[in-house]
């Protein structure tokens, strides 16, 4: 036996939740390619522009039955896509403007048509926006667990849910079968064209799928959820991964999670706070999707604001530590006499972080405070500092000899470049092997031990993470 509370859930809540999750899943999957192709607002345009199609279908058939409505909406979805591309090319406008022009005029046309021709049509504006997910009941919800999949129970599943299930399977199959073509067309449509993949055709197919799933979804769950799910899960996934396959997977998970969480919060949440009416579940799913995206923006391990700030801080501390070592080395060279190349260390916080890091790595030890900087290099620190100063002076030599810069112009550039001591910098020493820099200071010999290339690695990681 199924307990009454669960039976109640099966009857009233399972189908709306399923409809929302399926709608979120199929639009979420397709949305990945819209986001990559910078056409995220296509869902917005299509869902506004289906209005005249709905009214036209009503006028032609005189009924509000499902299939004419779906056909009308589907046709106007495709017409929207075609018109946007036509206006963009004929009028030489940017995509955003073309979309705005087309969908707002089509929406106005729908509004006027309703008022003039089909005033009696019971097209509920709010239903178009919010959907009517709450009205999807499972009429023959089973009493026993072993009846869940029986024909009798399944016959009571609302048609909207079956439609969405078919649509979600279609969308999944479309993405799986044409993955290669979609990926190529999204990332490099010129290459796709030259390889004979017809990116225009791929794009048209994608737009047709978007229009179809928009139409299939908005009847049950409303246009607002469709617009959100076309972009939010994909954008969230984009901030969490760098590979298209994992992006698709993550976006599907995010879409399903926002569907389930949003439903629970919208349908049951208000009761926890003592309200007796639930709030719009589709609106709540959109909010959940937005919150998930915001979380990813802040906390994504690769692209999140926190992680990026930490990476930059690590770079800054390493640079400051190396500057500290080089300053101490130069001071040793001059046997304590103050020199022109000495720089004030960076701000207090960064400076103390750098000092602590240097002490922890065993590169410096505390020294009598009579010195300008109360630290002394250890042997290990002196080795490291020698390599930094060597790179600095090699860079100076390179800039003067090969780039023809004046000797008094190279120090600041070399200050920045000295931190990059990887393979490229190792080739700086030309065959002449200079022994002094342009200012006459000796260039220390190369280290015999391979040095850790922390900073170049850090910078490269950060750069590659932030490629568009």
């Amino acid at each position, binding site marked *: 036996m199924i307990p009454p509370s669960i039976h109640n859930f099966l009857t009233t809540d399972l189908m709306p939740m399923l409809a929302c999750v399926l709608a979120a899943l199929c639009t979420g999957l397709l949305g990945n390619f819209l*986001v990559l192709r*910078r*056409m*995220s*607002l296509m869902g*917005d345009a299509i869902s506004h522009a289906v209005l005249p199609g709905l009214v036209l279908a009503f006028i032609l058939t005189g009924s509000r039955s499902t299939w004419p409505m779906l056909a009308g909406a589907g046709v106007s979805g495709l017409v929207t896509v075609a018109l946007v591309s036509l*206006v963009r090319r*004929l*009028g*030489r*406008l*940017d*995509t*955003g*403007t073309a*979309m*705005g*022009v087309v969908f*707002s*005029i089509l*929406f*106005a*046309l729908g*509004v*006027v048509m*309703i*008022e*003039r021709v089909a005033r009696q*049509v*019971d097209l*509920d*504006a*709010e239903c178009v*926006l*919010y959907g009517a997910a709450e009205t999807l009941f499972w009429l023959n919800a089973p009493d026993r667990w072993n009846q869940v999949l029986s024909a009798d129970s399944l016959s009571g599943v609302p048609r909207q849910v079956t439609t969405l299930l078919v649509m979600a399977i279609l969308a999944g199959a479309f993405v799986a079968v044409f993955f290669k073509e979609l990926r190529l067309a999204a990332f490099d449509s010129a290459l796709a064209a030259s390889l004979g993949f017809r990116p225009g055709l791929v794009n048209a197919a994608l737009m047709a799928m978007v229009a179809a799933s928009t139409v299939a979804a908005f009847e049950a769950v409303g246009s*607002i*959820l469709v*617009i*959100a799910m*076309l*972009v939010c899960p994909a*954008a969230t996934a*984009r*901030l969490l991964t760098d590979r298209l396959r994992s992006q698709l997977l993550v976006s599907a998970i995010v879409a399903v999670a926002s569907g389930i969480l949003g439903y629970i919060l*919208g349908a049951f949440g*208000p009761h926890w706070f003592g309200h007796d009416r639930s*709030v*719009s579940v589709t*609106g*709540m*799913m*959109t*909010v959940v*999707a*937005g919150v998930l995206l915001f979380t990813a*923006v802040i906390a994504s391990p690769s*692209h999140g604001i926190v992680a990026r700030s930490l990476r930059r801080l690590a770079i800054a501390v390493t640079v400051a530590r190396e500057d500290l070592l080089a300053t101490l080395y130069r001071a040793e060279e001059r046997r304590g006499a103050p020199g022109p190349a000495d720089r004030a260390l960076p701000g207090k916080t960064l400076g103390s972080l750098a000092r602590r890091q240097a002490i922890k790595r065993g590169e410096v030890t505390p020294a009598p405070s009579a010195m300008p900087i109360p630290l002394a290099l250890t042997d290990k620190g002196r080795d490291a500092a020698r390599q930094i100063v060597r790179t600095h002076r090699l860079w100076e030599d390179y800039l003067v000899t090969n780039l023809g810069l004046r000797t008094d112009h190279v120090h600041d550039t070399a200050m920045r470049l000295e931190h990059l001591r990887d393979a490229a910098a190792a080739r700086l020493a030309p065959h002449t092997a200079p022994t002094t820099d342009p200012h006459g200071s000796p260039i220390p010999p190369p280290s015999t031990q391979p040095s850790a290339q922390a900073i170049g690695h850090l910078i490269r990681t950060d750069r590659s993470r*932030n*490629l*568009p």
Partner: protein
Amino acid sequence: MTPALTITASLSSPPSTFSWAELFRALTFQAGHNTALVVAGTALLGIAGGLVGTLALLRKRSLMGDAISHATLPGIGLAFLIATALGFQGRSVPILMLGGGITAILGVLAIQFLLRFTRLREDAAIAVILSTFFGLGVVIMTVVQSSSSGQQGGLRAYIFGQASAMSASDVWLMASLAVGAALIVALLFKELTLTCFDDEFARAAGWPVGLLDLAIMSLVVIVTLAGIQAVGLVLVIAMLIVPAAAARFWSERVVIVTLLAAALGGLSGYLGAIASSMLDRLPTGGVIVLSAGAIFVLSLVLAPRRGVLATVARRLRLRLSVALDHRVVALTAPTTGPITGSTTGSTTRAHAPIPFIDLLLRLRGLALPSVGSPALTDSGRARAARVAGARQEWEDFLSHQAGIPRSHAAVSADLVEHVLRKDGARP
């Protein structure tokens, strides 16, 4: 379920039959106080929308208006809830507008935040903020509806607009907003257009580009708030985009485009409001946008230079001229000898025979009527010589200066021979 998209636009007792006298009175603001108010208000809205929309268009931020208008919804709902809880009249327009304005600005800032700190592109950022804010608004609206059963009717109007309900104070508000927007645009015109066209340069020249951007977006927020009352959340987007996009076709000068956009926006507001006052059951907002849409389509087709007809005509003229070039060269070829294996080898589409080409040759005075192939006149021969000469020149240039073999030069020579002037070929 509430009844269908009730965009009641029946203005002050709409006349059931059309009459020219009625139209004239409407056009001259004499068809009743209420109609005059609505016409004036929507025309002013159109003017403000055109002015501000041009800046948004040039900054390629047309769809920010989309996000902004959707982002007003949570603010409107929250303002209603808070005002009601504090014992004020929840439906007072200034309170709702203030709430909507606050969340709209928050939406703009959120979009800027996403653009600044993530790798999301503009379209994705706009779509994310639009849908999330609107979803939040929808949630708040369901709270509003469940908490106050009798009062929510006025809030519906914010999604679909209610021009007919415009009062004199609304028109004054609209007028001051339009004048204010015009003043700001006029005062900051140089800075704003500089930001639109070359923000890098503006930044390098020391202008606060971030602030100027924010100024443009605040203007969009103001126009949106003013327009929501009249034409609703969705159609106000059209007032910000369509007149500006239409004006863009007519000129390459930013001052003219801006003024024209204001004029076209005003015109569509004026015409739309009058049409909906003249004819029964025409929703004002929809008709205004359709008027703007008609103006857009006319501009798209008819505008000189950027219009579709002008472009088609230009291409046709070029194709004809190319065909004439080929024909005169073909007619002279047997007498002047082979032109380095080119005319025979070229297979471009332009070489497809064009019907009546010989007739055209005669009409242009390039050939005389004769039996068989036409005989070229002096000017026809001169034209053939010029084309062949230009071709020869180009092939010489490629083979001597660029080291490209003559056999490979034919492809580009096919294209260049029609536009290269003999005197301009050699430095």
